[in-house]
């Protein structure tokens, strides 16, 4: 069987190249199908690799706790809150925590003014521990200090974007900006952090936590976020369950009540994002597999035509000793090869298309095709070739030698 298989392969290639244009048009369905899958996968693949890197820079072992109000309660006017009391409990009783800091976002105006310039920014009240938790350090000046918090000093640390938006000098230290009608002295400028999912992490204004509390006024309504980082030996799972126990008892939750807070890790965020990307890829993959199916039907159609055209050849081969399986293999190999070649062309042009898309969008990560996608695309197109090659090949193999020889 071996040498006749090689011969089948050779003559299949000869047949495909004898009708170059027709072969190309036949496989166009497969080419377009595979090219679009690969283009999508290469773009999302590049994006996901890039986002993985960004999340890693967030600090893999940091946690964020926020209050969580179910939609139903929100409609009833009930709001869950995390309070400074919760923070205190965590500081006292939490184990495996390296540093912990409250984060209090301005809930009314996020305006910041410098001279005639006004900018909008994320304004957060936090403590000196924030720099370790968020791995965000100053390039010029100093970070918020513990004494700033104790004395409710009116000092501010700003991100690079804020400096630019307000036309502040390259070294903005000791300049004064206006926040909620109060004057704040700039003490530090943060290192640029870059974007994450298209959002700048440098458009940020940090003031001492207690200063923020006093600006917000009514303390009873304060809902803080808590960020913390773990000690290197602590297990994420243990810390999460410990925090859950502390907060549940602090909030007097019964065993049948749901948590009124959410503990998020950077890893979770990344998983969520990966899930979204995965779903997107699957949906597009599904749509595209339909086009591969259509491509397969195209191949079957042309192979049926080809069998009819070559009826006489089939008769000759049978007369000189070809068995049914020789003829079957001949046409099956031809259909599969046709489809595989289409898959290969689709793979290359899809990758090219992906690179083109990635390059034409500024700041977009470069396209990359994972090996599994390339193998899957080729495997699937080969499978389509076999699937849709069987019918024409069986038709050829069943031909009666006398009728086939007589065929004009």
């Amino acid at each position: 069987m071996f040498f006749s298989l090689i011969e089948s392969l050779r003559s299949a290639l000869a047949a495909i190249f004898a009708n170059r244009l027709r072969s190309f048009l036949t496989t166009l369905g497969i080419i377009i199908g595979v090219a679009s899958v690969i283009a999508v996968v290469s773009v999302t693949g590049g994006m996901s690799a890039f986002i993985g890197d960004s999340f890693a820079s967030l600090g893999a072992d940091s946690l964020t706790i926020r209050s969580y109000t179910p939609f139903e309660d929100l409609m009833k006017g009930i709001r869950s809150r995390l309070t400074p009391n919760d923070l205190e409990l965590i500081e006292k009783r939490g184990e495996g925590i390296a540093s912990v800091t409250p984060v209090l976002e301005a809930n009314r105006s996020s305006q910041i003014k410098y001279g005639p310039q006004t900018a909008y920014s994320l304004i957060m009240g936090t403590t000196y521990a924030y720099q370790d938790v968020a791995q965000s350090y100053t390039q010029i000046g100093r970070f918020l200090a513990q004494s700033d918090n104790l004395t409710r000093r009116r000092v501010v640390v700003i991100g690079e974007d804020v400096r630019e938006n307000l036309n502040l000098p390259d070294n903005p230290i000791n300049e004064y900006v206006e926040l909620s009608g109060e004057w704040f002295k700039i003490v530090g400028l943060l290192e640029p952090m870059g974007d994450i999912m298209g959002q700048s992490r440098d458009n940020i204004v940090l003031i001492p936590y207690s200063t923020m509390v006093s600006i917000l006024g009514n303390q009873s309504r304060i809902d803080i976020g808590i960020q913390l980082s773990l000690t290197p030996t602590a297990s994420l799972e243990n810390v999460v369950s410990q925090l859950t126990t502390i907060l549940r008892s602090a909030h007097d939750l019964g065993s049948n009540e749901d948590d009124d807070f959410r503990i998020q890790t950077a890893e979770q965020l990344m998983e969520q994002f990966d899930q979204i990307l995965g779903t997107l890829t699957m949906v597009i993959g599904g749509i595209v597999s339909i086009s591969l199916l259509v491509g397969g039907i195209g191949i079957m159609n042309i192979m049926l035509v080809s069998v009819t055209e070559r009826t006489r050849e089939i008769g000759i081969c049978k007369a000189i000793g070809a068995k049914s399986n020789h003829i079957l293999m001949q046409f099956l190999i031809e259909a599969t090869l046709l489809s595989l070649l289409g898959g290969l062309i689709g793979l290359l042009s899809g990758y090219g298309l992906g690179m083109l898309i990635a390059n034409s969008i500024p700041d977009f990560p470069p396209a990359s095709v994972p090996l599994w996608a390339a193998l899957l695309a080729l495997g699937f197109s080969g499978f389509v070739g076999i699937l849709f090659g069987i019918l024409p090949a069986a038709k050829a193999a069943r031909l009666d030698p006398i009728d086939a020889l007589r065929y004009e």
Partner: protein
Amino acid sequence: MENNTAVINLKNITKHYEMGSQLVRALDGINIEVKRNEYLAFVGSSGSGKSTMLNILGCLDRPTSGQYHLNGKNVAELYQNDLSEIRNLEIGFIFQSFNLLPRADALNNVMQPLVYRNIGFHNRRKMAMEALTRVGLKERVDHLPNQLSGGQRQRVAIARALVTQPSILLADEPTGNLDSKTTLEIMELFDELHKEGHTVIVVTHEEEIAQHCRRVVEMRDGKIFSDNDSEEKANLAGV
């Protein structure tokens, strides 16, 4: 070279077709024996059953009834795949319209039957070159069929039939598409092959072709009308 081994032995072979509601007896009780190294022609007008005869002898078709022993093996009841193998091993076909593979050059055409024997490329090539040299086409092995003249094409077909070293060479109107000069050349080639010990069977309606053959079997209405071999025997018996 003469010996008495029967290569072909047909016993009471019939072949019936249904055409519409009518039963056509294409072959009707054929009994014939062909010995090794015979040079035989089946002649007859169209509709005499000689084409059906060729299909049966060439194992392209199965008889409706009767026994066909080819080299001592009954092939009358074999199925298509087994018949393919028999054709590959025992029979060398030469057709009126040459029936070469159009996309393959002369060498590949001659190598093709050996592919089905699963012979490796180098041996295939060697055997095919020998066969092409035998028919005088050594210089044209890389020509495609449409680059060859009719006579040359038929030589390629003969080389393809010879390359498998079959028990019988079976030619169906081998010169039907050739001019008279080429016809003579091809028939001379058949004469030589016969002298070399091949068993040659020609199906034809042309008298001149039949004249090359030692034994001429004339068919009419699906029956053997005359056979000069049995006449000779009868003559001998008569004397």
